[in-house]
Protein backbone atom coordinates (compact mmCIF):
# COMPACT_ATOMS: atom_id res chain seq x y z
CA UNK A 1 0.00 0.00 0.00
CA UNK A 2 1.40 3.40 -0.88
CA UNK A 3 1.25 6.58 1.19
CA UNK A 4 -1.76 8.04 -0.62
CA UNK A 5 -3.72 4.81 -0.24
CA UNK A 6 -2.95 4.73 3.47
CA UNK A 7 -4.06 8.31 3.84
CA UNK A 8 -7.28 7.58 1.96
CA UNK A 9 -7.97 4.60 4.15
CA UNK A 10 -7.36 6.63 7.29
CA UNK A 11 -9.76 9.33 6.10
CA UNK A 12 -12.50 6.91 5.17
CA UNK A 13 -11.79 5.05 8.43
CA UNK A 14 -14.29 2.25 8.21
CA UNK A 15 -15.07 1.05 11.70
CA UNK A 16 -15.31 -2.73 12.05
CA UNK A 17 -18.95 -3.71 12.25
CA UNK A 18 -20.14 -4.99 15.61
CA UNK A 19 -22.87 -7.42 16.47
CA UNK A 20 -23.69 -11.02 15.66
CA UNK A 21 -22.69 -12.41 12.28
CA UNK A 22 -23.78 -15.94 11.37
CA UNK A 23 -20.66 -16.45 9.25
CA UNK A 24 -18.43 -16.18 12.35
CA UNK A 25 -20.09 -19.18 13.99
CA UNK A 26 -20.57 -21.60 11.07
CA UNK A 27 -18.41 -24.37 12.57
CA UNK A 28 -20.10 -24.14 15.94
CA UNK A 29 -23.56 -24.16 14.38
CA UNK A 30 -22.78 -27.20 12.29
CA UNK A 31 -21.41 -29.13 15.27
CA UNK A 32 -24.48 -28.26 17.36
CA UNK A 33 -26.80 -29.46 14.63
CA UNK A 34 -25.03 -32.83 14.48
CA UNK A 35 -25.10 -33.20 18.27
CA UNK A 36 -28.77 -32.26 18.36
CA UNK A 37 -29.60 -34.88 15.73
CA UNK A 38 -27.71 -37.55 17.66
CA UNK A 39 -29.58 -36.65 20.89
CA UNK A 40 -32.97 -36.78 19.15
CA UNK A 41 -32.05 -40.10 17.57
CA UNK A 42 -30.90 -41.48 20.94
CA UNK A 43 -34.07 -40.39 22.76
CA UNK A 44 -36.62 -41.52 20.18
CA UNK A 45 -34.59 -44.46 18.90
CA UNK A 46 -34.90 -46.20 22.25
CA UNK A 47 -38.69 -46.30 21.86
CA UNK A 48 -38.58 -48.02 18.46
CA UNK A 49 -38.49 -51.79 18.14
CA UNK A 50 -34.72 -52.62 17.98
CA UNK A 51 -35.41 -54.94 15.01
CA UNK A 52 -36.15 -51.89 12.87
CA UNK A 53 -33.96 -49.14 14.19
CA UNK A 54 -31.09 -48.85 16.58
CA UNK A 55 -29.76 -45.79 18.42
CA UNK A 56 -26.31 -44.19 18.76
CA UNK A 57 -25.11 -45.68 22.06
CA UNK A 58 -26.24 -49.18 21.05
CA UNK A 59 -24.42 -48.82 17.73
CA UNK A 60 -21.30 -47.65 19.56
CA UNK A 61 -21.51 -50.69 21.83
CA UNK A 62 -21.91 -53.01 18.83
CA UNK A 63 -18.96 -51.32 17.18
CA UNK A 64 -16.69 -51.94 20.18
CA UNK A 65 -17.81 -55.59 20.30
CA UNK A 66 -17.06 -56.14 16.63
CA UNK A 67 -13.69 -54.44 16.91
CA UNK A 68 -12.66 -56.52 19.92
CA UNK A 69 -13.60 -59.77 18.22
CA UNK A 70 -11.48 -58.73 15.23
CA UNK A 71 -14.26 -59.79 12.88
CA UNK A 72 -14.86 -56.31 11.55
CA UNK A 73 -11.23 -55.50 10.81
CA UNK A 74 -10.76 -58.79 8.95
CA UNK A 75 -13.76 -58.20 6.70
CA UNK A 76 -12.95 -54.53 6.18
CA UNK A 77 -9.37 -55.26 5.16
CA UNK A 78 -10.56 -57.96 2.77
CA UNK A 79 -12.95 -55.49 1.14
CA UNK A 80 -10.36 -52.73 0.94
CA UNK A 81 -7.82 -54.99 -0.71
CA UNK A 82 -10.21 -56.05 -3.45
CA UNK A 83 -11.36 -52.46 -3.81
CA UNK A 84 -7.83 -51.11 -4.21
CA UNK A 85 -6.77 -53.70 -6.79
CA UNK A 86 -9.93 -53.23 -8.85
CA UNK A 87 -9.89 -49.45 -8.64
CA UNK A 88 -6.23 -49.00 -9.52
CA UNK A 89 -6.50 -51.26 -12.56
CA UNK A 90 -9.63 -49.44 -13.72
CA UNK A 91 -7.85 -46.08 -13.38
CA UNK A 92 -4.77 -47.24 -15.27
CA UNK A 93 -6.70 -48.76 -18.16
CA UNK A 94 -9.39 -46.04 -18.15
CA UNK A 95 -6.88 -43.20 -18.42
CA UNK A 96 -4.87 -45.06 -21.03
CA UNK A 97 -7.87 -45.84 -23.25
CA UNK A 98 -9.35 -42.38 -22.72
CA UNK A 99 -6.14 -40.70 -23.88
CA UNK A 100 -5.90 -43.01 -26.86
CA UNK A 101 -9.51 -42.55 -27.95
CA UNK A 102 -9.42 -38.81 -27.36
CA UNK A 103 -6.32 -38.22 -29.42
CA UNK A 104 -6.68 -40.73 -32.25
CA UNK A 105 -9.85 -40.88 -34.33
CA UNK A 106 -9.03 -44.42 -35.42
CA UNK A 107 -8.90 -45.67 -31.83
CA UNK A 108 -12.20 -43.94 -31.15
CA UNK A 109 -13.92 -45.50 -34.17
CA UNK A 110 -12.64 -48.95 -33.32
CA UNK A 111 -13.36 -48.90 -29.59
CA UNK A 112 -16.41 -46.76 -29.06
CA UNK A 113 -19.08 -49.38 -29.90
CA UNK A 114 -17.83 -51.55 -27.03
CA UNK A 115 -17.25 -48.69 -24.66
CA UNK A 116 -20.67 -47.15 -25.17
CA UNK A 117 -22.49 -50.48 -25.07
CA UNK A 118 -20.74 -51.60 -21.89
CA UNK A 119 -21.14 -48.21 -20.27
CA UNK A 120 -24.85 -48.15 -21.04
CA UNK A 121 -25.37 -51.63 -19.54
CA UNK A 122 -26.10 -51.42 -15.82
CA UNK A 123 -23.13 -53.12 -14.17
CA UNK A 124 -25.42 -55.07 -11.81
CA UNK A 125 -26.79 -56.95 -14.80
CA UNK A 126 -23.34 -58.37 -15.47
CA UNK A 127 -22.70 -59.58 -11.92
CA UNK A 128 -24.31 -63.05 -12.28
CA UNK A 129 -22.23 -63.68 -15.39
CA UNK A 130 -19.05 -62.52 -13.71
CA UNK A 131 -19.76 -64.78 -10.74
CA UNK A 132 -20.24 -67.66 -13.14
CA UNK A 133 -16.89 -66.96 -14.74
CA UNK A 134 -14.79 -66.11 -11.71
CA UNK A 135 -16.53 -67.86 -8.82
CA UNK A 136 -17.40 -66.33 -5.47
CA UNK A 137 -13.88 -65.24 -4.51
CA UNK A 138 -11.79 -62.14 -4.98
CA UNK A 139 -11.36 -62.30 -8.80
CA UNK A 140 -15.08 -61.83 -9.45
CA UNK A 141 -15.22 -58.89 -7.05
CA UNK A 142 -12.15 -57.32 -8.57
CA UNK A 143 -13.75 -57.63 -12.00
CA UNK A 144 -16.91 -55.91 -10.77
CA UNK A 145 -15.01 -53.09 -9.05
CA UNK A 146 -12.91 -52.72 -12.20
CA UNK A 147 -15.96 -52.42 -14.45
CA UNK A 148 -17.58 -49.93 -12.07
CA UNK A 149 -14.56 -47.63 -12.02
CA UNK A 150 -13.46 -48.00 -15.63
CA UNK A 151 -16.12 -46.04 -17.50
CA UNK A 152 -16.34 -42.84 -15.49
CA UNK A 153 -12.60 -42.32 -15.70
CA UNK A 154 -12.44 -43.40 -19.35
CA UNK A 155 -15.29 -41.11 -20.43
CA UNK A 156 -13.92 -38.13 -18.53
CA UNK A 157 -10.40 -38.58 -19.84
CA UNK A 158 -11.78 -38.91 -23.36
CA UNK A 159 -13.80 -35.70 -23.20
CA UNK A 160 -10.91 -33.96 -21.44
CA UNK A 161 -8.60 -34.73 -24.34
CA UNK A 162 -11.29 -33.72 -26.84
CA UNK A 163 -11.68 -30.30 -25.26
CA UNK A 164 -7.96 -29.51 -25.49
CA UNK A 165 -8.02 -26.66 -27.98
CA UNK A 166 -6.12 -26.88 -31.23
CA UNK A 167 -4.32 -23.67 -30.35
CA UNK A 168 -2.69 -25.30 -27.32
CA UNK A 169 -1.44 -28.08 -29.57
CA UNK A 170 -0.16 -25.41 -31.99
CA UNK A 171 1.97 -23.93 -29.22
CA UNK A 172 3.65 -27.28 -28.77
CA UNK A 173 4.22 -27.62 -32.50
CA UNK A 174 5.62 -24.10 -32.92
CA UNK A 175 8.18 -24.89 -30.24
CA UNK A 176 9.17 -28.07 -32.02
CA UNK A 177 7.44 -30.67 -29.84
CA UNK A 178 6.95 -34.08 -31.43
CA UNK A 179 3.89 -36.25 -30.82
CA UNK A 180 5.28 -37.72 -27.58
CA UNK A 181 6.03 -34.31 -26.07
CA UNK A 182 2.73 -32.88 -27.26
CA UNK A 183 1.12 -35.72 -25.34
CA UNK A 184 3.06 -35.36 -22.11
CA UNK A 185 3.47 -31.59 -22.03
CA UNK A 186 0.23 -30.36 -23.60
CA UNK A 187 -2.54 -32.96 -23.79
CA UNK A 188 -2.15 -34.62 -20.40
CA UNK A 189 -1.79 -31.45 -18.30
CA UNK A 190 -4.61 -29.73 -20.21
CA UNK A 191 -6.91 -32.70 -19.67
CA UNK A 192 -5.84 -33.25 -16.07
CA UNK A 193 -8.78 -31.49 -14.39
CA UNK A 194 -11.14 -33.72 -16.40
CA UNK A 195 -9.14 -36.82 -15.60
CA UNK A 196 -9.19 -36.02 -11.90
CA UNK A 197 -12.94 -35.45 -12.00
CA UNK A 198 -13.20 -38.89 -13.57
CA UNK A 199 -11.02 -40.39 -10.84
CA UNK A 200 -13.28 -38.87 -8.23
CA UNK A 201 -16.35 -40.39 -9.86
CA UNK A 202 -14.60 -43.75 -10.23
CA UNK A 203 -13.64 -43.83 -6.55
CA UNK A 204 -17.32 -43.57 -5.59
CA UNK A 205 -18.60 -45.95 -8.27
CA UNK A 206 -16.02 -48.57 -7.36
CA UNK A 207 -17.13 -48.39 -3.73
CA UNK A 208 -20.69 -49.11 -4.83
CA UNK A 209 -19.27 -51.90 -7.00
CA UNK A 210 -17.46 -53.67 -4.18
CA UNK A 211 -20.48 -53.55 -1.82
CA UNK A 212 -22.86 -54.77 -4.52
CA UNK A 213 -20.53 -57.60 -5.39
CA UNK A 214 -20.15 -58.66 -1.77
CA UNK A 215 -23.87 -58.51 -1.16
CA UNK A 216 -24.37 -60.82 -4.12
CA UNK A 217 -21.78 -63.32 -3.05
CA UNK A 218 -22.49 -62.80 0.67
CA UNK A 219 -19.39 -64.70 1.74
CA UNK A 220 -16.82 -62.12 2.82
CA UNK A 221 -16.35 -58.37 3.12
CA UNK A 222 -18.43 -55.40 4.19
CA UNK A 223 -21.27 -56.31 1.88
CA UNK A 224 -21.44 -59.78 3.38
CA UNK A 225 -21.61 -58.27 6.87
CA UNK A 226 -24.51 -56.09 5.79
CA UNK A 227 -26.44 -59.13 4.53
CA UNK A 228 -25.55 -61.22 7.55
CA UNK A 229 -26.56 -58.63 10.17
CA UNK A 230 -29.72 -57.56 8.43
CA UNK A 231 -30.99 -61.11 7.95
CA UNK A 232 -30.20 -61.75 11.65
CA UNK A 233 -32.07 -58.52 12.53
CA UNK A 234 -28.95 -57.31 14.35
CA UNK A 235 -29.75 -53.74 13.45
CA UNK A 236 -27.21 -52.21 15.84
CA UNK A 237 -24.38 -54.20 14.25
CA UNK A 238 -25.78 -53.48 10.80
CA UNK A 239 -25.10 -49.77 11.29
CA UNK A 240 -21.38 -50.32 11.94
CA UNK A 241 -20.40 -51.17 8.35
CA UNK A 242 -22.86 -48.56 7.07
CA UNK A 243 -21.15 -45.82 9.07
CA UNK A 244 -17.73 -47.17 8.14
CA UNK A 245 -18.64 -47.03 4.45
CA UNK A 246 -20.00 -43.51 4.77
CA UNK A 247 -16.77 -42.38 6.42
CA UNK A 248 -14.68 -44.19 3.83
CA UNK A 249 -16.62 -42.51 1.03
CA UNK A 250 -16.09 -39.07 2.53
CA UNK A 251 -12.38 -39.64 3.23
CA UNK A 252 -11.65 -41.00 -0.25
CA UNK A 253 -13.49 -38.23 -1.99
CA UNK A 254 -11.68 -35.60 0.12
CA UNK A 255 -8.34 -37.27 -0.62
CA UNK A 256 -8.94 -37.09 -4.36
CA UNK A 257 -10.02 -33.48 -3.98
CA UNK A 258 -6.74 -32.65 -2.24
CA UNK A 259 -4.79 -34.50 -4.90
CA UNK A 260 -6.69 -32.60 -7.57
CA UNK A 261 -5.75 -29.32 -5.91
CA UNK A 262 -2.09 -30.33 -5.80
CA UNK A 263 -1.96 -31.55 -9.39
CA UNK A 264 -4.11 -28.85 -10.95
CA UNK A 265 -3.63 -25.71 -8.87
CA UNK A 266 -4.37 -23.39 -11.76
CA UNK A 267 -7.99 -24.49 -11.86
CA UNK A 268 -8.34 -23.96 -8.13
CA UNK A 269 -7.26 -20.34 -8.18
CA UNK A 270 -9.14 -19.67 -11.39
CA UNK A 271 -12.41 -20.06 -9.54
CA UNK A 272 -11.25 -17.87 -6.69
CA UNK A 273 -10.44 -14.87 -8.85
Amino acid at each position, binding site marked *: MNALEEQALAEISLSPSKGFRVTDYLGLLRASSVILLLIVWEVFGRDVNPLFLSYPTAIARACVQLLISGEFQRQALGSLEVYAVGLVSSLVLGIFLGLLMGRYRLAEYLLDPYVYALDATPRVALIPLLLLWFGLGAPAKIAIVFLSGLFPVLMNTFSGVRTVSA*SLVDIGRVYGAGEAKIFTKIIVPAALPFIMAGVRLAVGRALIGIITAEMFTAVTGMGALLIRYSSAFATDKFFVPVIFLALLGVILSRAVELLQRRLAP*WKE*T*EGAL
Partner: protein
Amino acid sequence: MLEVRHLSKVFFEQNDSRKPGLVALYDICLTVRKKEFVCLLGPSGCGKTTLIRIVAGLLPADRGEVLVNGNPVTSPGRDRCMVFQQFGLLPWRTVLGNVEFGLEIEGVPREERRDISRKYLELVGLNGFEDYYPHQISGGMQQRVGIARALSKKPDILLMDEPFGAVDAQTREQLQEELLKIWAKTDTTVIFVTHSIDESIYLSDRVVVMHSRPGRIKEEVLVDLPRPRWEGDVKADPRFARLRTDIRESLRG
Protein backbone atom coordinates in the same frame (compact mmCIF):
# COMPACT_ATOMS: atom_id res chain seq x y z
CA MET B 1 16.12 -14.46 -45.67
CA LEU B 2 12.45 -15.24 -46.19
CA GLU B 3 10.99 -15.86 -49.57
CA VAL B 4 7.36 -16.70 -50.33
CA ARG B 5 6.89 -17.93 -53.89
CA HIS B 6 3.52 -18.12 -55.64
CA LEU B 7 1.81 -19.42 -52.56
CA SER B 8 -1.85 -20.50 -52.71
CA LYS B 9 -4.08 -22.08 -50.12
CA VAL B 10 -7.64 -23.36 -50.43
CA PHE B 11 -9.89 -24.20 -47.49
CA PHE B 12 -12.52 -26.85 -47.97
CA GLU B 13 -16.11 -26.99 -46.77
CA GLN B 14 -16.38 -28.17 -43.21
CA ASN B 15 -18.84 -30.98 -43.94
CA ASP B 16 -17.48 -32.00 -47.32
CA SER B 17 -13.71 -32.20 -47.48
CA ARG B 18 -13.77 -32.53 -51.27
CA LYS B 19 -15.68 -29.30 -51.93
CA PRO B 20 -13.50 -26.17 -52.09
CA GLY B 21 -14.94 -23.45 -49.89
CA LEU B 22 -12.59 -20.49 -49.82
CA VAL B 23 -9.46 -19.43 -51.63
CA ALA B 24 -7.60 -18.14 -48.57
CA LEU B 25 -4.44 -17.18 -50.43
CA TYR B 26 -3.89 -16.72 -54.13
CA ASP B 27 -0.45 -16.45 -55.71
CA ILE B 28 1.32 -14.70 -52.85
CA CYS B 29 4.88 -13.55 -53.52
CA LEU B 30 6.82 -11.82 -50.79
CA THR B 31 10.47 -11.32 -49.93
CA VAL B 32 11.63 -10.18 -46.51
CA ARG B 33 15.21 -9.12 -45.77
CA LYS B 34 17.17 -9.91 -42.65
CA LYS B 35 16.29 -7.65 -39.71
CA GLU B 36 13.39 -6.15 -41.59
CA PHE B 37 10.11 -5.40 -39.82
CA VAL B 38 7.18 -6.15 -42.12
CA CYS B 39 3.50 -5.75 -41.31
CA LEU B 40 0.77 -7.73 -43.04
CA LEU B 41 -2.28 -5.48 -43.05
CA GLY B 42 -5.77 -6.26 -44.21
CA PRO B 43 -9.39 -6.86 -43.27
CA SER B 44 -10.54 -10.05 -41.55
CA GLY B 45 -10.60 -12.92 -43.99
CA CYS B 46 -7.82 -11.62 -46.23
CA GLY B 47 -5.63 -14.59 -45.33
CA LYS B 48 -2.97 -12.76 -43.31
CA THR B 49 -3.18 -15.22 -40.44
CA THR B 50 -3.21 -18.14 -42.88
CA LEU B 51 -0.08 -16.77 -44.52
CA ILE B 52 1.77 -16.41 -41.22
CA ARG B 53 0.69 -19.91 -40.16
CA ILE B 54 2.05 -21.37 -43.38
CA VAL B 55 5.34 -19.53 -42.82
CA ALA B 56 5.37 -20.91 -39.27
CA GLY B 57 4.98 -24.41 -40.69
CA LEU B 58 1.68 -25.04 -38.90
CA LEU B 59 -0.26 -25.30 -42.14
CA PRO B 60 0.74 -26.82 -45.49
CA ALA B 61 0.46 -24.78 -48.67
CA ASP B 62 -1.48 -26.08 -51.69
CA ARG B 63 0.71 -24.38 -54.29
CA GLY B 64 4.01 -22.57 -54.14
CA GLU B 65 6.62 -22.62 -51.42
CA VAL B 66 8.17 -20.78 -48.51
CA LEU B 67 11.95 -20.56 -48.25
CA VAL B 68 13.82 -19.55 -45.12
CA ASN B 69 17.53 -18.96 -45.76
CA GLY B 70 17.03 -20.95 -48.95
CA ASN B 71 15.49 -24.00 -47.25
CA PRO B 72 11.88 -24.92 -47.98
CA VAL B 73 9.55 -24.83 -44.96
CA THR B 74 7.58 -28.00 -44.32
CA SER B 75 7.18 -27.93 -40.55
CA PRO B 76 7.84 -25.65 -37.59
CA GLY B 77 11.55 -25.10 -37.03
CA ARG B 78 13.83 -23.40 -34.59
CA ASP B 79 14.63 -20.61 -37.05
CA ARG B 80 11.06 -19.31 -36.65
CA CYS B 81 8.91 -18.63 -33.64
CA MET B 82 5.37 -17.39 -33.22
CA VAL B 83 3.60 -15.05 -30.83
CA PHE B 84 -0.11 -15.75 -30.67
CA GLN B 85 -3.11 -13.45 -30.65
CA GLN B 86 -4.63 -14.99 -27.53
CA PHE B 87 -1.16 -15.10 -25.91
CA GLY B 88 -0.98 -18.90 -26.13
CA LEU B 89 0.20 -19.42 -22.57
CA LEU B 90 -0.17 -22.78 -20.88
CA PRO B 91 -2.53 -22.16 -17.95
CA TRP B 92 -0.98 -24.90 -15.78
CA ARG B 93 2.45 -23.35 -15.92
CA THR B 94 3.72 -20.34 -14.05
CA VAL B 95 5.10 -17.31 -15.87
CA LEU B 96 8.62 -18.72 -15.58
CA GLY B 97 7.42 -22.20 -16.59
CA ASN B 98 5.81 -20.74 -19.70
CA VAL B 99 8.96 -18.91 -20.77
CA GLU B 100 10.95 -22.10 -20.15
CA PHE B 101 8.64 -24.17 -22.34
CA GLY B 102 10.46 -23.73 -25.65
CA LEU B 103 13.87 -24.40 -24.10
CA GLU B 104 12.50 -27.41 -22.24
CA ILE B 105 11.24 -28.95 -25.48
CA GLU B 106 14.68 -28.35 -26.95
CA GLY B 107 16.24 -30.21 -24.05
CA VAL B 108 18.16 -27.35 -22.41
CA PRO B 109 19.12 -28.39 -18.84
CA ARG B 110 16.91 -27.03 -16.08
CA GLU B 111 19.32 -24.58 -14.45
CA GLU B 112 20.43 -23.16 -17.75
CA ARG B 113 16.93 -22.65 -19.07
CA ARG B 114 15.90 -21.00 -15.79
CA ASP B 115 18.70 -18.49 -16.16
CA ILE B 116 17.89 -17.78 -19.79
CA SER B 117 14.19 -17.43 -19.04
CA ARG B 118 14.81 -15.00 -16.17
CA LYS B 119 16.95 -12.90 -18.50
CA TYR B 120 14.14 -12.64 -21.05
CA LEU B 121 11.54 -11.94 -18.39
CA GLU B 122 13.69 -9.05 -17.28
CA LEU B 123 13.93 -7.87 -20.88
CA VAL B 124 10.13 -7.60 -21.09
CA GLY B 125 9.97 -6.01 -17.64
CA LEU B 126 8.41 -8.89 -15.75
CA ASN B 127 10.98 -9.76 -13.13
CA GLY B 128 9.23 -10.51 -9.86
CA PHE B 129 6.31 -12.24 -11.58
CA GLU B 130 8.03 -15.60 -12.17
CA ASP B 131 5.73 -17.61 -9.91
CA TYR B 132 2.39 -16.15 -10.97
CA TYR B 133 -0.02 -18.15 -13.08
CA PRO B 134 -1.20 -16.60 -16.38
CA HIS B 135 -4.73 -15.95 -15.15
CA GLN B 136 -3.35 -13.92 -12.24
CA ILE B 137 -1.75 -11.27 -14.45
CA SER B 138 -3.18 -8.79 -16.96
CA GLY B 139 -3.52 -9.39 -20.69
CA GLY B 140 -0.65 -7.04 -21.45
CA MET B 141 1.61 -8.91 -19.03
CA GLN B 142 0.52 -12.24 -20.48
CA GLN B 143 1.58 -11.13 -23.94
CA ARG B 144 4.95 -10.00 -22.55
CA VAL B 145 5.37 -13.55 -21.31
CA GLY B 146 4.47 -14.79 -24.80
CA ILE B 147 7.08 -12.48 -26.31
CA ALA B 148 9.75 -13.49 -23.78
CA ARG B 149 9.06 -17.15 -24.54
CA ALA B 150 9.40 -16.60 -28.29
CA LEU B 151 12.59 -14.55 -27.91
CA SER B 152 14.19 -17.12 -25.60
CA LYS B 153 14.57 -19.39 -28.62
CA LYS B 154 16.50 -16.68 -30.48
CA PRO B 155 14.56 -17.16 -33.72
CA ASP B 156 15.79 -15.63 -36.97
CA ILE B 157 12.20 -14.74 -37.78
CA LEU B 158 9.63 -13.69 -35.22
CA LEU B 159 6.08 -14.22 -36.44
CA MET B 160 3.46 -12.19 -34.62
CA ASP B 161 -0.22 -12.86 -35.24
CA GLU B 162 -2.13 -9.77 -34.08
CA PRO B 163 -0.26 -9.98 -30.79
CA PHE B 164 -1.73 -6.79 -29.36
CA GLY B 165 -5.27 -7.30 -30.63
CA ALA B 166 -6.54 -8.55 -27.30
CA VAL B 167 -5.21 -5.80 -25.00
CA ASP B 168 -6.55 -2.32 -24.21
CA ALA B 169 -5.47 0.72 -26.23
CA GLN B 170 -3.00 2.19 -23.72
CA THR B 171 -1.31 -1.12 -23.05
CA ARG B 172 -1.17 -1.63 -26.77
CA GLU B 173 0.80 1.57 -27.37
CA GLN B 174 3.13 0.71 -24.55
CA LEU B 175 3.73 -2.79 -25.90
CA GLN B 176 4.36 -1.43 -29.41
CA GLU B 177 7.05 0.85 -28.07
CA GLU B 178 8.65 -1.91 -26.02
CA LEU B 179 8.59 -4.27 -28.98
CA LEU B 180 10.47 -1.72 -31.07
CA LYS B 181 13.06 -1.28 -28.31
CA ILE B 182 13.58 -5.03 -27.97
CA TRP B 183 13.72 -5.48 -31.72
CA ALA B 184 16.37 -2.72 -32.00
CA LYS B 185 18.57 -4.73 -29.65
CA THR B 186 18.32 -7.98 -31.62
CA ASP B 187 18.88 -9.13 -35.20
CA THR B 188 15.43 -10.57 -35.51
CA THR B 189 13.31 -10.28 -38.61
CA VAL B 190 9.69 -9.58 -37.65
CA ILE B 191 6.54 -10.39 -39.58
CA PHE B 192 3.64 -8.79 -37.81
CA VAL B 193 -0.03 -9.32 -38.64
CA THR B 194 -2.43 -6.51 -37.79
CA HIS B 195 -5.57 -4.82 -38.97
CA SER B 196 -4.66 -1.46 -37.48
CA ILE B 197 -3.27 1.02 -40.01
CA ASP B 198 -1.57 3.14 -37.33
CA GLU B 199 0.05 0.14 -35.73
CA SER B 200 1.44 -1.05 -39.04
CA ILE B 201 2.96 2.34 -39.88
CA TYR B 202 4.36 2.92 -36.40
CA LEU B 203 6.11 -0.43 -36.26
CA SER B 204 7.23 -1.46 -39.68
CA ASP B 205 9.69 -0.79 -42.48
CA ARG B 206 7.17 -1.98 -45.01
CA VAL B 207 3.42 -2.49 -44.94
CA VAL B 208 2.05 -5.30 -47.08
CA VAL B 209 -1.57 -4.48 -47.87
CA MET B 210 -3.77 -7.52 -48.47
CA HIS B 211 -7.23 -7.94 -49.96
CA SER B 212 -9.74 -10.73 -49.48
CA ARG B 213 -11.65 -13.12 -51.77
CA PRO B 214 -9.27 -14.39 -52.82
CA GLY B 215 -6.63 -13.45 -50.26
CA ARG B 216 -3.87 -11.64 -52.15
CA ILE B 217 -1.29 -8.89 -51.86
CA LYS B 218 -2.62 -5.60 -53.14
CA GLU B 219 0.36 -3.37 -52.61
CA GLU B 220 3.53 -2.90 -50.60
CA VAL B 221 4.06 0.48 -48.96
CA LEU B 222 7.53 1.53 -47.77
CA VAL B 223 7.51 3.33 -44.43
CA ASP B 224 10.32 5.85 -44.60
CA LEU B 225 9.88 7.30 -41.12
CA PRO B 226 13.10 7.67 -39.14
CA ARG B 227 13.94 5.38 -36.24
CA PRO B 228 13.88 5.27 -33.27
CA ARG B 229 10.20 6.04 -33.48
CA TRP B 230 9.45 6.10 -29.77
CA GLU B 231 11.20 9.45 -29.36
CA GLY B 232 9.01 12.44 -30.01
CA ASP B 233 5.59 12.07 -31.55
CA VAL B 234 5.96 10.17 -34.82
CA LYS B 235 2.22 9.98 -35.27
CA ALA B 236 2.10 13.79 -35.52
CA ASP B 237 4.64 13.75 -38.37
CA PRO B 238 3.02 14.83 -41.68
CA ARG B 239 4.65 11.84 -43.38
CA PHE B 240 2.78 9.57 -40.98
CA ALA B 241 -0.51 11.20 -41.96
CA ARG B 242 0.29 10.82 -45.64
CA LEU B 243 1.15 7.15 -45.25
CA ARG B 244 -2.08 6.63 -43.35
CA THR B 245 -4.07 8.21 -46.21
CA ASP B 246 -2.22 6.18 -48.85
CA ILE B 247 -2.71 2.90 -47.04
CA ARG B 248 -6.36 3.58 -46.35
CA GLU B 249 -6.84 4.24 -50.06
CA SER B 250 -5.03 1.05 -50.90
CA LEU B 251 -7.21 -0.95 -48.50
CA ARG B 252 -10.36 0.45 -50.10
CA GLY B 253 -9.42 0.21 -53.78
